[in-house]
């Protein structure tokens, strides 16, 4: 195991499976799955320690978690209304908490920079789950499947199709027949945009986190890239990444927010008529 002297995974876009696992039944086990499992463990530990004994008068841990949940629930309820919030809060809360912890986990020292070489390739031991597109696609898929299920449940298929392809604006008479082909075309565009949503959601998150990781690795190795003397490279590797760490903290939070808010907005757009 070595400390990476190069920007991590700069040549590879995928999460890495160690060579000794590639041909075993553990071929699915990658460094990002390991990190996802660790994040799952951390979440379970936090949840367990904060809600071990739930009381009406809360302790410090329960109070903290309650503040997070209550604040987030209030925000979601303000947009989605009571009925849809009850259905979807679990997913939205999970998305936000999981993406946030995963993103920030990637900023811990050693994540992405400690690993081993397999030939010319450097394989990091740990790599954030959200920097693996399998994870972001999985989250987008679950979100969109549930979005479709809840939309069907709340509006019904007829209203859904009507909303997509129907003529809006309360038109009637001959103009209605003129507008039908136009709105059919708009409906097709709408369907395409819905189908593209999982891709756009997953690419946005993956791209931001993966780029952030590479940027930090580049900043850490900036001295070596410009062939500075070793002592200067070491000093620069400590100083240069500091502002970028703060930037990544912000980006990690914003990306968690963006992913969650987009699902929230999709739900609001497709169910708002029924709620009111």
């Amino acid at each position, binding site marked *: 195991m070595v400390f990476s002297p190069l920007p991590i995974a700069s040549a590879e876009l*995928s999460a890495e499976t160690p060579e000794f696992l590639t041909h075993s039944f553990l071929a699915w086990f990658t460094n990002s799955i390991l990190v996802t499992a660790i994040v799952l463990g951390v979440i379970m530990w936090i949840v367990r320690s904060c809600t071990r004994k739930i009381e*009406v008068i809360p302790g410090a841990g329960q109070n903290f978690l309650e503040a997070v949940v209550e604040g987030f629930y209030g925000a979601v309820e303000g947009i989605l209304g009571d009925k849809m919030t009850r259905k979807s809060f679990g997913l939205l809360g999970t998305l936000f908490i999981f993406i946030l912890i995963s993103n920030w986990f990637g900023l811990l020292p050693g994540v992405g920079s400690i690993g081993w070489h397999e030939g010319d390739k450097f394989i990091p031991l740990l790599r954030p789950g959200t920097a693996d597109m399998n994870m972001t696609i999985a989250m987008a898929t679950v979100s969109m499947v549930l979005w479709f299920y809840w939309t069907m449940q709340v509006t019904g298929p007829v209203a859904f199709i009507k909303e997509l392809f129907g003529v809006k604006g309360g038109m009637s008479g001959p103009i209605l027949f003129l507008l039908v082909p136009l709105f059919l075309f708009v409906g097709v565009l709408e369907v395409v945009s819905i189908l593209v949503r999982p891709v756009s959601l997953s690419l946005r998150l993956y791209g931001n986190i993966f780029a952030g990781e590479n940027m930090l690795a580049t900043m850490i190795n900036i001295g070596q890239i410009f062939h500075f003397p070793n002592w200067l490279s070491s000093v620069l590797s400590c100083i240069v990444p500091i502002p970028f760490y703060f930037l990544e903290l912000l980006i990690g939070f914003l990306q968690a927010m963006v992913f969650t808010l987009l699902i929230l907005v999709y739900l609001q757009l497709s169910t708002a008529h029924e709620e009111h």
Partner: protein
Amino acid sequence: MEILKQFGVDWPHFIAQLILFLIVYFVLNRFAFAPLLKVLEERRKRIEEGQLNAEKIKKQLAEAELRYQEILRKANDDAQVMIEELRKTNEAFSQREMEKAVKESAAIVERARHEITSERNRMVDEVRREMVSLVVKTTAQVAGKVLSPEDQKRLSEEASKELAS
């Protein structure tokens, strides 16, 4: 699909991540959100009940205060009436007692006067008897002889007459 492969997306990894995400979803939903939202709802209800109770108690307190004032006012009035009655009774009683005391004192004075008179009479009688006896004894000594009982009786009667006059 080729582009997805370039990004390292394949079924085994996708399914593994999907399962992990679903586990996170289940854990958070089952062990964090559901119980916390339940307790928040419970607390909201309790606060609502508390506020209602506080309102009720405030109302009851105001009513109790009014009732208390009413009772106090009534008690004051009753006490005033009782004091007045007592004062009147006391005055009547004092008057009666005074009259009785005057009567009693008059009787005592009368009785004392009567006793004084009878005592005075008794003393006068006694002095008179002493005087008679003295006269008889003095006469016997002056006469130088022993007086017979008849003489003594006669002298006594005469002396008594003299003293009485």
